[in-house]
């Protein structure tokens, strides 16, 4: 009896204990659910994806007179993902028929205004726009195409995305997602138990985890809140969170979040998230413009972005895309005929080089560094900034091609030291200081080391214009001032003696300044620099825009200063800009997520060099191209194009430089080895070839600065510096001098010659010195330099 009583008591106590335990467990679960709920709700409600700054190239402005052929426009539109149709009937489409183009320009939010979508009709004459009207025939003075998206500033190994709102999503996409991934999406409460059971059964049969019964909501939860570990606990957490999400939010919200969240591919270190970016990444156009076969491919990719990568595994991707289309037709989402015709279409993905996302790493690096002056790293990688850059994609592509082609040509030449050459091109727009292209090496990509910005190399003879400018600014020199091209010894502070030599080891005696610069004579330059003063020359570097003044060592006169290509570009930009310094900039404007303009570097100009001195120097730099070390470039340039520039070669041929400009482009080229081993190339034989290939392939204008009123042109003899007649074939050179400057007249060919039918002299006619021996004449043309 007592025993029975005891067992009953025990049982009752046990029951009570069980109830307490269950209650406790429930409480714990409740607390867990409650905290999950708080987390899910808070995170989802205030949902802000971390949005990397999006960087755009400069837009193409359409206006009458613009140099742009119908063919070129077609190419640009293709690259922007415009669809060529028989009629341009919606934004993002165009029609081209011979010299006429109709384009329905997309709406785009620029930094100054929302430019609406608009149908434009263009007529072309040759390679120019001759007419630009709207649909009703009214003249449009100027209109911008939407700019090319060139990349994002995302954290290392980070997510990148373009967030889209529901109205930017083609209606087909959610339908297709539901049909393929989650048929019961509209009915279930976050978890689809029958699907899980089905998946479980399939997995048991397969003996491993193969099929997921996850709803779209669960997939979203997994992507958004959790990491990718597959444990039972994760699964339960995921299910609970999915239910909470469904209880708290509308289906439409969940679908939109899914569309913006889901992982859809990998682009190097960048994870492509959301359909908005994926559409740009795979098709090079906005999500709203995707067609059925493209939508189907995206839905196909969801299941396995790596396995079904359409670029690496096109057959797999195609097979799955067509399966998706079949599924859609089977469920009545689309008509069977539509599915069939869509299945016949190719994948339609863009070439990686043309899709324009993240393929300008050297340039993007500069954008990022310039923005870092005003913004925190997190602002750039998370705050959804929109950055309008100065990149000219056409110039960038041409520059990449020119450099690759030249380096390959040099390698094939079998020259010693030509194997594994690297190179850099920096292009700017001289008048505004905008950086329009940067090629950082043969491979567009790089691992942190950006040669254009970080490789510091001796600039060789690129230093000479600084010496001559310093001299001209004293007011005591003219282009025919005699410089002593004679041996010189300089005692250095460390006790050594510096004995520079000319490249040819020759000594020319007194030479006019113009010839010394044109032929890049070392001795004449060193003597001039010592006469002018090393400090003064070093100051000129800073004056032209170098941030850190170089050490005023004698060897600086011949280019011992180590500079990056970008620094060289900054200094030469001032030479190309008539002595006006404009801080080089890669960013034009920045908008925040609400389209409010933020701080960005502004166009600046400051006159930093004497107008007369810079004009005289620039005219002599034109002679470098016409008859000096830059002459080999002429064969690639149109006859009437006036350009100016300077070659540079460092000791033992380690670095080959060329810095030169037309009226609208400054191009800096460096060629060398990363390990600094000799290349066997001079500035003329290496960098100049890439420079002229590029300059010759772009639409550019002559360098024709206006002559200051205090100067006038006079004809002088290149070899003697005496005033001569323009008809003195080969030696006569027109150069600027102070008005009424007394110049000694030439005795051999005096300035007062009769006007007769003398042949016109091309400015780049080979100089022939009647006094020079044939071998010397030869040397003038082919003489390489240091």
């Amino acid at each position, binding site marked *: 009896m007592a025993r029975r009583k005891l067992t009953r008591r025990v049982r009752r106590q046990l029951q009570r204990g069980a109830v307490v335990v269950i209650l406790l467990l429930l409480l714990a679960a409740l607390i867990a659910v409650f905290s999950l709920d708080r987390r899910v709700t808070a995170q989802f409600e205030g949902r802000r994806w971390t949005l990397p700054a999006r960087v755009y190239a400069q837009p193409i*402005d359409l*206006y*009458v*007179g*613009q140099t742009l052929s119908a063919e070129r426009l077609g190419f640009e539109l293709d690259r922007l993902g415009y669809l060529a149709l028989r009629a341009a009937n919606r934004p993002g489409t165009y029609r081209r028929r011979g010299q006429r183009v109709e384009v329905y320009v997309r709406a785009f939010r620029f*930094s*100054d205004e929302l430019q609406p979508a608009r149908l434009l009709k263009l007529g072309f004459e040759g390679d120019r726009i001759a007419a630009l009207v709207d649909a009703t025939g009214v003249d449009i*003075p100027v209109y*911008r195409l939407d700019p090319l998206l060139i990349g994002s500033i995302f954290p290392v190994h980070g997510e990148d995305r373009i967030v889209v709102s529901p109205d930017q999503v083609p209606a087909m996409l959610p339908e297709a997602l539901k049909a393929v991934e989650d048929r019961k999406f509209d009915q279930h409460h976050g978890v689809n138990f029958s699907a899980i059971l089905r998946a479980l059964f399939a997995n048991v049969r397969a003996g491993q985890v193969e099929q997921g019964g996850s709803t779209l909501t669960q997939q979203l939860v997994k992507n958004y809140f959790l990491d990718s570990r597959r444990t039972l606990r994760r699964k339960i957490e995921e299910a609970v969170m999915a239910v909470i999400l469904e209880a708290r939010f509308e289906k439409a919200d969940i679908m939109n979040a899914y569309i913006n969240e889901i992982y859809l591919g990998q682009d190097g270190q960048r994870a492509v998230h959301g359909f908005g970016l994926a559409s740009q990444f795979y098709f090079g156009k906005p999500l709203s413009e995707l067609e059925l076969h493209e939508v189907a491919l995206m839905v196909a990719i969801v299941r396995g972005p790596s396995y079904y990568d359409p670029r690496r595994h096109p057959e797999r991707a195609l097979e799955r895309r067509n399966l998706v289309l079949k599924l859609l037709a089977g469920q009545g989402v689309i008509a069977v005929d539509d599915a069939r015709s869509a299945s016949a279409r190719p994948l339609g993905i863009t070439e990686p080089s043309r899709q324009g996302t993240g393929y300008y790493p050297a340039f993007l690096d500069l954008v990022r560094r310039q923005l870092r002056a005003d913004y925190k790293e997190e602002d750039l990688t998370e705050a959804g900034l929109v950055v309008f850059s100065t990149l000219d994609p056409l110039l960038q592509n041409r520059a990449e091609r020119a450099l690759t082609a030249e380096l390959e040509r040099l390698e094939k030449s079998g020259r010693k030291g030509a194997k594994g050459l690297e190179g850099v091109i920096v292009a700017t*727009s001289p008048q*505004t200081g905008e950086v329009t292209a940067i090629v950082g090496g043969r491979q567009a990509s790089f691992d942190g080391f950006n040669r254009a910005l970080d490789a510091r190399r001796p600039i060789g003879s690129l230093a000479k214009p600084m010496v001559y400018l310093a001299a001209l600014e004293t*007011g*005591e020199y*003219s282009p*025919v*001032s*005699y410089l002593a091209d004679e041996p010189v010894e300089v005692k250095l502070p460390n006790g050594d003696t510096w004995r520079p030599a000319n490249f040819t080891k020759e000594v020319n005696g007194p030479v006019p300044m113009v010839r010394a610069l044109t032929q890049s004579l070392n001795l004449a330059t060193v003597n001039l620099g010592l006469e002018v003063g090393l400090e003064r020359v070093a100051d000129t570097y800073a004056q032209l825009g170098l941030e850190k003044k170089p050490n005023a060592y004698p060897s600086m006169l011949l280019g011992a200063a180590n500079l990056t290509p970008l620094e060289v570009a900054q200094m030469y930009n001032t030479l190309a800009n008539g002595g*006006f310094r404009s801080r080089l900039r890669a960013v*034009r*404007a920045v908008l925040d997520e609400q389209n409010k303009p933020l701080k960005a570097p*502004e*166009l*600046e100009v*400051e*006159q930093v060099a004497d107008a007369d001195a810079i004009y005289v120097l620039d*005219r002599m730099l034109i002679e470098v191209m016409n008859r000096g070390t830059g002459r080999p470039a002429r064969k690639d340039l149109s006859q009437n194009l*006036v350009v100016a520039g300077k070659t540079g070669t460092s000791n033992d041929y380690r670095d080959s430089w060329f810095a030169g400009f037309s009226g*609208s482009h400054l191009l800096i080229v460096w060629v060398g080895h990363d390990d600094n081993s000799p290349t066997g190339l001079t500035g003329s034989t290496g960098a100049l070839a890439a420079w002229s290939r590029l300059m010759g392939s772009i639409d550019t204008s*002559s360098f024709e600065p*206006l*002559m*200051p*009123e*205090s100067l*006038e*042109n006079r*004809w002088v003899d290149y070899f003697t*510096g005496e*005033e001569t*007649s*323009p008809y003195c074939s080969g030696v006569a050179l*027109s*150069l600027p*001098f*102070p*008005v*009424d*400057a*007394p*110049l*000694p007249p030439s005795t051999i060919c005096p*300035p*007062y*010659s009769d*006007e007769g039918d*003398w042949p*016109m*002299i091309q*400015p*780049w006619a080979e100089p022939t010195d009647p006094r020079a021996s044939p071998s010397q004449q030869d040397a003038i043309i082919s003489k390489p330099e240091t």
Partner: protein
Amino acid sequence: MNLLRASLYLCGLVLVGCASSPFETESVGTARDKPQAPGEGPTVTTPPVITGPTPEAEPSVEVPMPLPPPRERPRAPPATLSPASKALVSQAQGQRKRGDLPGAAVSLDRALRIEPNNPLLWIELGRLRMDQGNFPQAEGMGRKALSMSIGDDGTQAQAWQLIGESFRARGRNTQAEEALARARELAPL
């Protein structure tokens, strides 16, 4: 070496003699040609070399010497805007009036990409910099416009006006007066 020294001496002499401002060169002298693009080929008249003192330094009372014809300053046609940049400039002016200075900067940036050598655009940008309170840059834009409008008095006057105003805004009144006087001189009312 003698030759070298002699030529250096001569050059120095000349440079000292011509160190005056470019705007005071409207003095008497010889006619000169001024091809803008280097190497345009020979011109018809070759200027005579003047080895002695300049003409005005030779006051001759008794024997009237025929004075050389006055040197003409080369004239440039007044700068004008292309239709595209005109549209952008008026857009920028509207934006400035509304106080949308960043917007105006974008419009002028666009125009400058179309016509980087048009001094009128640099003057517009200088006026915008005045609105932005960036007076040194307003001066910079004015000077850039000057370098692009040599021989075009009307445009030069506008540029000097801008430079003068930028000086005045910085309290540099003497320089402001000088610049504004130049503007008046170039474009008398």
